[in-house]
């Protein structure tokens, strides 16, 4: 295999692995920017993957080729509703946000596996018949090398990148985004200015639920194609790492997610690529996590969290 061929395959498979991380990380940015820590991203992805697969298996005959798209929609809606649990606990009930997030992870996996056994009588669903297929974009995919890198991929990948750009626009170019960020930096000041702190935080957590659900469904409908205990193992935490590595900025998170996607793609397929065959797999596997720690420690530019991250807002207290 020539170098260019290898590179083309590597980039396109990195994008496949990156797409779920991008969705989820953007969701994480929204939640954390509003001041709510979201360790539960993993659980939200589990929920999204579960709903996406079950919906796909159930309605494949009815919707045909549209099934994966409608599955994504279902996963998005149900995960947003599921995220309400985290929102109620951590915003209204003042629960420790990290603990609540841990509970979300347990709960999602518990519900997903319980229902899988209920519906299918075993620990794993069937393989779906209507996954996303890679599609060649006419003309663009005929460009040598670049075409194979960027224009022979799953449609969900483009959607993920679009979501990241939209997320950036919403957070930094709209009033809504300004308010959401204000709530995460200084909720009391925001409240004094008439911004409804609780409502903004609820909305932010539900957005993270919707996007986490999309992320989980994307992984399930492109890579995994079925749901079991082993479908989502760590992608949510890796997305969280991308949020922090990307310094709580949508475009930073996008970049970090793509980079982590690379690391994942290399660790899965690296042995067959000339450049990476000699690097022990373990380095590639731990790379995203080591880099995140280094980023936090300030060795790769200081990552500053939103000021009020993790603190419940209690009206009237100073």
């Amino acid at each position, binding site marked *: 295999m020539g170098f260019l061929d290898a590179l083309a395959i590597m980039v396109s498979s990195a994008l496949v692995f990156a797409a779920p991380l991008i969705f989820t990380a953007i969701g994480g940015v929204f939640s954390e920017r509003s001041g709510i*820590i979201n*360790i539960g991203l993993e659980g939200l992805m589990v929920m999204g993957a579960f709903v996406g697969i079950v919906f796909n298996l159930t309605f494949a005959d009815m919707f045909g080729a549209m099934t994966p798209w409608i599955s994504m929609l279902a996963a998005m809606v149900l995960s947003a509703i599921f995220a309400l*649990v985290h929102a109620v*606990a951590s915003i209204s*009930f*003042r*629960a*420790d946000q*990290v*603990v*609540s997030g*841990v*509970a*979300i*992870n*347990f*709960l999602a*996996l*518990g*519900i997903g*596996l*319980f229902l899988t*056994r*209920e519906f299918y009588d075993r620990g794993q669903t069937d393989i779906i018949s209507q996954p996303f297929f890679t599609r060649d974009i006419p003309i663009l995919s005929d460009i040598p090398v670049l075409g194979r890198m960027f224009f022979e991929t799953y449609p969900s990948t483009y959607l993920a990148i679009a979501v990241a750009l939209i997320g950036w626009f919403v957070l930094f170019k709209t009033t809504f985004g300004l308010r959401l960020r204000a709530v995460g930096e200084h909720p009391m000041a925001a409240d004094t200015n008439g911004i409804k702190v609780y409502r903004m935080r609820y909305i932010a957590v539900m957005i993270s639920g919707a996007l986490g659900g999309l992320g989980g469904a994307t992984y399930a409908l492109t890579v995994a194609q079925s749901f079991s*205990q*082993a479908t989502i*193992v*760590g992608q949510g*935490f890796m997305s*969280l*790492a991308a949020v*922090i590595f990307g310094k709580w900025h949508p475009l930073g998170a996008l970049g970090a997610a793509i980079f982590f996607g690379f690391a994942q793609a290399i660790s899965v397929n690296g042995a067959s690529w000339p450049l990476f065959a000699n690097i*022990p*797999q*373990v380095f590639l*596997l*731990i790379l995203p*996590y*080591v880099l*995140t*720690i280094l980023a*936090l*420690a*300030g060795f790769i530019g200081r990552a500053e*969290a939103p000021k009020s991250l993790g603190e419940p807002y209690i009206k009237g207290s100073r």
Partner: protein
Amino acid sequence: MFNILVPLISVVLGLLAGALIMISFGYNPVAGYAAMWNGAFGDAYFLGETVRQVTPYVLSGLAVAFAMRAGLLNIGVEGQVIVGWLAAVWIGSSFGMPPVLHVIVALLVAAIAGGLWGFVPGLLKAKLGVHEVIVTIMMNYIALYLSNSLIRGVLTDGSDRTENVASTASLAAPWLREITFFSRIHYGFIVALLMAFTMWFVLNKTTRGFELRAVGSNPFASEYAGMKVGRNIIIAMVISGGFAGLAGAMEGLGTFQYASVSSGFTNIGFDGIAVALLGANTAIGVVLAAILFGTLKIGALNMPTQAGVPTELVDIVIALIILFVASGYVIRWVFLKFSKEGK
């Protein structure tokens, strides 16, 4: 009072929610919970298995609780369990030593390995103010992948499972196994109880423990009082990691007697968060909570055969219990409201 009341109410609510779920899926909740009870205590075998499951939970619960008392949330217990497990098996399988000494050395090295894994986030928190939650999560994955690669590449020649530990390093208790119809019960529960006592003693009877608790409740006041906050943070994380490493050693030297390549986490560490939370971060509370969760987990294995209820119901129940405990503010609020109206 609320320290006891909130966990109790949460457990009751969690179990009730589990019953509701069973009813809505057409199961008989009484039969379901009866199956769970039998699966945990029904005969000597199940009892032995329950004790075995409780053992690492006590230690991982202590790990989370100890850090929490110093104001730190150690989500990294999972990773510290993994490195402790690996270290114990490494000492147990690669070295020859006299009987009792071998176990002690293996346990010590496991605790040191876990402690080192806790040292990194402790140091970063103390010196650079980096939040321990994210660092410990990252350390979990590093532990998982590193341990897999060490098992494949260093401890064995490409195999997915190490050799069994030498009998000198094993925690196995043949006579206990025999009277429990060959469950996997081992001497580890003695270690776990000793450690629970140690934690109580250190926190409540030593100056160091007082400092740790002071730093946990108000780092600024402790600083003004002349305590070294940073050093206490590091010590807390190292001791916490040490407990976690021992939890791993329970599996490595007791339950399994080997270490193997794993695609996912053991969940002992994550369940430890639930245990500590329910046990209100006290030594005795952790032991009781570990017994409860161990019972639920082992009892659940009997639910599919005897009552047809999927095992995973218990994961939902445990998650709900955590949510309820974490939302203790509301339970308190409701309770105070009612007691006020009563007057």
